[in-house]
């Protein structure tokens, strides 16, 4: 099989924090009735919960995020995504639901360092300071849609569409330029 190629092939940049494209990452969109039993059962079989509104839950190297009242995003290893998509689709067959492997339609970035917040603060209208651990915030990154969450004590993970990955990387690089710290 051909090698998976991420949008920027793991490009990274060292500013006052480190910004890096995370390389190939599996992402699966799940749409359906989030309060319904079939979805909960299908996810439970994979050891995953149905997250509460705006939450992102991390279970054994995988994350599942609440994207809107009828959509979840499952983040897993890139090579595991096709099989997981098929398994979930099989479990939800007959339901009004959709499972789609969107791994190669998105780009994932990590912002690591003590001042990681400030890099995102400059780019998004969201109130980063009050963003709690375990909450995913879908918002605007300068001119494009993006979402991010606190994936560690000094780390923010950010998702954008693959088509704008170069633009987002440029934004992050400029935003992390040494000497441009906010405080």
């Amino acid at each position: 099989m051909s090698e998976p190629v991420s949008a920027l092939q793991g490009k990274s940049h060292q500013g006052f924090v480190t910004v890096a494209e995370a390389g190939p990452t599996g992402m699966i969109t799940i749409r359906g009735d989030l309060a319904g039993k079939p979805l909960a059962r299908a996810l439970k079989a994979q050891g995953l919960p149905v997250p509460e509104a705006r939450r992102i839950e991390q279970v054994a190297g995988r994350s599942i995020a609440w994207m809107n009242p009828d959509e979840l995003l499952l983040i897993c290893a890139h090579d595991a995504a096709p099989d997981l998509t098929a398994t979930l689709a099989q479990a939800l067959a007959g339901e009004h639901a959709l499972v789609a492997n969107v791994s190669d339609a998105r780009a994932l970035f990590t912002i690591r360092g003590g001042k990681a917040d400030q890099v995102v603060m400059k780019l998004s209208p969201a109130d980063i300071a009050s963003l709690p651990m375990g909450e995913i915030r879908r918002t605007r990154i300068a001119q494009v849609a993006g979402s991010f969450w606190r994936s560690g004590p000094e780390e923010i993970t950010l998702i954008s569409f693959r088509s704008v990955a170069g633009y987002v990387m440029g934004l992050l690089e400029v935003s992390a330029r040494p000497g441009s710290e906010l405080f």
Partner: protein
Amino acid sequence: MLSLTCPCCGITAEETEFAPGGEAHLKRFGPGSSDEAFEGYLFARKNPKGVHFERWRHAYGCGKWFLAARCTATLEVFGTYPAQTTQPPAELIAKIKAKRPEWEGWA
């Protein structure tokens, strides 16, 4: 700056995260209606100075439509509520009436 709270995801965000959708609670006049009714549906808008009910979409967030009551003169937001309603909720109307006694009411 206008801040709105999306009733679908509960996020309070500023205006640029949303997309405006014009006046809310329009009654559609389609095929079979009179020309005047159709013209009114397409073009006639209240455009008041003061309390206004509008449609908004949380475009950069959860992507869902919702409705908001807002003052067009002061940008005061009285409340937001789900799009699946045919008229403003009674408690919201009561709240607006309490704040703006001179308001002539909805519809």
